[in-house]
């Protein structure tokens, strides 16, 4: 938690709210929208995020918390309020398994919503399947998050995202993009895995790709860039978390590469601080993939998310793509539970109901989302791409459908449930 800037943000936020907020505040719609607070027996819902550690990964959980507060102020789930318990796993699998046991076995949560953690998917897979509890995650990152029966992220995942980023560059410069270098941290089920989709795609187009996996603890970004350039690429994808990407872009800037190679990155770089951090040199030269549509789209659900965050979230909660993902996760869970008999809301009924979600629409998605009862869940695989310009991330209008070969089984399942195009 960033207390100093939180204080400033509260002041700014209050001023902004005073000028424009009244319009938002009236517009937040959640659940049954009765406007009356819920007073029944609470439904326990949990969430696991990674706050302390190499990065603060919690915006998804904070957005879900805000949505549930809005829900409780609007009749809850047919009269029953939601008790949302958010736990920190500090990027540590031991701690992740501990808080998962706490939420599932001690607090008897019926579902987990808004998870956002690098280690949760791997550490708790066994527990989730044993207790048959669904996790409607905000954000999944490692491969494990997209290959579990009980885990359904609303985001697309770094592999799908990376593939889309490279596809967009190839589409923007047709015929010129033949060689790809993908830079990723050497965590096998996060870094290398996230690059294999893009490399597989470019090879299918007749090009060639190389993955450079580097040690995140090393301090030598220049050598990574030099190694990348030795491959003579047309496009370089920086598939790293945003903090690690800044030194890589700095090293590339030092070598004056912005005009020699196209640079792009997956949604892990999509953060409002990112353009400022990499600086004016990269203006108009970097594209970043988005898993959901842009925050300033002005469409109804997008405005609702902003309104919910405005009224029920804290001013210091980031309004980024992960926050959007958390909001969507909370919304789909709430609307699913509203269809159930309020007396009989328990883990089994909620799990069965969520597995039955075959179509969930929102203008934040490029195509309808779903959970389904398949062995794995990767429903979000289309989104726009944005361009770094004037210190901001400006989205391009078109939605790109990712052509990652690993998604073949997902497409087959979508045909079965009738969602395929």
């Amino acid at each position, binding site marked *: 938690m*960033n207390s100093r800037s939180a204080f400033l943000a509260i002041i700014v936020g209050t001023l902004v709210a005073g000028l424009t907020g009244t319009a938002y505040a009236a517009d937040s719609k959640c659940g049954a929208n009765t406007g009356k607070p819920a007073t029944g027996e609470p439904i326990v819902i949990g969430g696991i995020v990674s706050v302390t550690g190499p990065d603060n990964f919690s915006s998804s959980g904070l957005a879900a918390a805000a949505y549930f507060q809005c829900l409780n102020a609007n009749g809850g789930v047919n009269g029953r309020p939601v008790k949302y318990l958010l736990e920190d796993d500090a990027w540590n699998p031991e701690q992740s398994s501990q808080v998962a046991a706490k939420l599932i076995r001690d607090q008897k949560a019926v579902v987990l919503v808004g998870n956002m953690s690098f280690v949760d998917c791997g550490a708790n897979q066994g527990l989730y399947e044993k207790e048959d509890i669904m996790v409607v995650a905000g954000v999944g990152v490692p491969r494990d998050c997209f290959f579990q029966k009980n885990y359904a992220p609303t985001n697309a995942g770094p592999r799908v995202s990376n593939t889309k980023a490279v596809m967009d560059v190839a589409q923007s410069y047709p015929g010129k993009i033949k060689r790809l270098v993908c830079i990723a941290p050497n965590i096998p089920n996060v870094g290398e895995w996230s690059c294999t989709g893009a490399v597989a795609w470019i090879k299918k187009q007749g090009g060639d790709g190389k993955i450079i996996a580097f040690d995140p603890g090393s301090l*030598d970004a220049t050598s990574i860039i*030099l*190694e990348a350039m030795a491959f003579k690429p047309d496009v370089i994808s920086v598939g790293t978390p945003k*903090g690690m990407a800044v030194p890589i872009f700095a090293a590339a800037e*030092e070598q004056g590469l912005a005009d020699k190679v196209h640079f792009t990155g997956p949604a892990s770089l999509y*953060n409002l601080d990112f353009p400022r951090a990499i600086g004016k040199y990269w203006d108009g030269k970097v594209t970043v993939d988005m898993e959901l549509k842009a925050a300033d789209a002005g469409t109804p659900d997008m405005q609702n998310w902003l309104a919910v965050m405005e009224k029920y979230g804290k001013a210091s909660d980031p309004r980024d793509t992960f926050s959007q993902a958390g909001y969507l996760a909370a919304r789909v869970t709430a609307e699913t539970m509203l269809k159930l008999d309020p007396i009989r809301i328990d883990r089994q009924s909620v799990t069965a109901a969520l597995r039955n979600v075959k179509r969930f629409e929102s203008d934040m998605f490029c195509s309808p989302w779903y959970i389904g009862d398949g062995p794995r869940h990767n429903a979000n695989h289309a989104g726009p791409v944005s361009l770094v310009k004037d210190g901001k991330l400006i989205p391009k209008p078109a939605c790109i459908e990712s052509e990652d070969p690993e998604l073949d089984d997902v497409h087959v399942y979508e045909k079965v449930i009738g969602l395929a195009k």
Partner: protein
Amino acid sequence: MPDFTPFLVSGLALAATYVLSAVGIVVLYRASGVVNFAQGAVGALAAFISWSIVERGGPESLSWLVGVAVATIVSLAYGRLIATRLVSTDPITRAVATLSFALILLGFMGYLWGEAPRRLRLPTDTMSFELLGVRVTLTRAIAFGLGVSVTAVVMLFLSHSRMGLQMRALASNRELSAMLGVRVFRIDGWAWVISGVLAGVSGVLLADLQRLSGQALTFAVIPAIAAAVIGRFASLPATVAGALAIGVCEALLTPVPVIGPFRSATPFIFAVGAMLWMQRKPVFVYR
């Protein structure tokens, strides 16, 4: 056969990092007998404060002065308040104590600033020159030059000045030095001040050259200790040479097919090799 020349230059650039950190460690060890695990954290603190001042619109030169000043004060505070209480314990306890201090600073920085994508910029970033086909910013050249010149200055200071002599005496045997009239607390304090200044300056430079991240800068001290090992914690020129060797070797391994991904182990392999070489004659300990 991959082209190694660009990696020679990036190796020198990396070596600048190692030289800066390692020199600070060796200087403090020679002056007070403490291996300072908190050096990276103190430097990171200076970098964060400097960055914050520039963020709020303050002048750049002031931001560096304030950052380095804070690093010096924090270092002196530790030296006066805590290190003096541990003086009679063994070197390992004192080293672990500096690690606890590093944890306190790390928690403090994480609480106040958190981890977010940030870049510390220095005006010399925009000026660069080309060396063997690789562009090197002036900042890197300054870091390198600073490491070497600090080494020379400190060597002269320790060997030719009165205070330098007293510092060496103090590190060698505290009780005897006190009996001989060396003003223990004052000299000790000066050693920590010098360490703080070095940590602050290297912290700002490293935050520019690498990453403005509390975690990354704090634990960058471990490869720096490897370079200090090569200098046997005593010889500054050997430390600089060691840091150079480590940096260049590590970068040169980048294009090598199988070993490349493991090149960040280079500092440690070098350190172990150097220690084995130094200890090759058997020594009995008489108790």
